[in-house]
């Protein structure tokens, strides 16, 4: 079974630029998550989708971050404009259902904002 795919793996941008990340979850997984992981910390949930609907985006900085999952499969996370403090690893995860299910993580996109 293929795992969660993410691209790009690495991205370096200057502050105030825009960036987008892509995620393809495990086939058949209805729930998709985006996490931000700052160096030395555990992942922090940014947004959760159930199929193509948003379940929770309470931790998403909506003035600069946006995410979509239009067809209930792939998802994109965008940052516009980026700030220095956005430097982190952005992890995508998926699970079969919403509650009490194991989340499987992709390799992440490492973002450096200069």
């Amino acid at each position: 079974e293929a795992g969660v795919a993410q691209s790009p793996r690495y991205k370096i941008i200057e502050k105030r630029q825009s960036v987008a990340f892509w995620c393809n979850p495990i086939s058949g997984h209805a729930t998709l998550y985006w996490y931000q992981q700052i160096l030395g910390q555990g992942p922090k949930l940014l947004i959760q989708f159930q199929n193509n609907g948003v379940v929770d985006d309470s931790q998403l900085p909506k003035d600069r971050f946006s995410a979509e999952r239009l067809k209930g499969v792939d998802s994109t996370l965008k940052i516009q404009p980026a700030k220095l403090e956005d430097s982190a690893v952005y992890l995508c995860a998926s699970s079969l259902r919403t509650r009490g299910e194991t989340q499987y993580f992709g390799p992440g996109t490492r973002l450096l904002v200069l």
Partner: protein
Amino acid sequence: GESVGLHLPTLSVQEGDNSIINCAYSNSASDYFIWYKQESGKGPQFIIDIRSNMDKRQGQRVTVLLNKTVKHLSLQIAATQPGDSAVYFCAEKASSYKLIFGSGTRLLVRP
């Protein structure tokens, strides 16, 4: 609460010894717990999970113990191998769907 800083707690063990990684969780209403392993440059990898109606669960070379009285979770790794070197995170879930991750422990295995 939120973890801070770049200096993860580190556990150094000799290859072949048993490792015990501890985690204190915050929410007494949490009913599901997971341990993840994260190697450098990779995403977290599921190791083992446990529900609050259990106090022990065993997998291959790993055991998770749950003490709800003191809100404590531990991961035991038997016969630790160099490939076990990684950062280990515990995560808890309360009645909502959201997983809350701890700050992590770095395991170093000495050859």
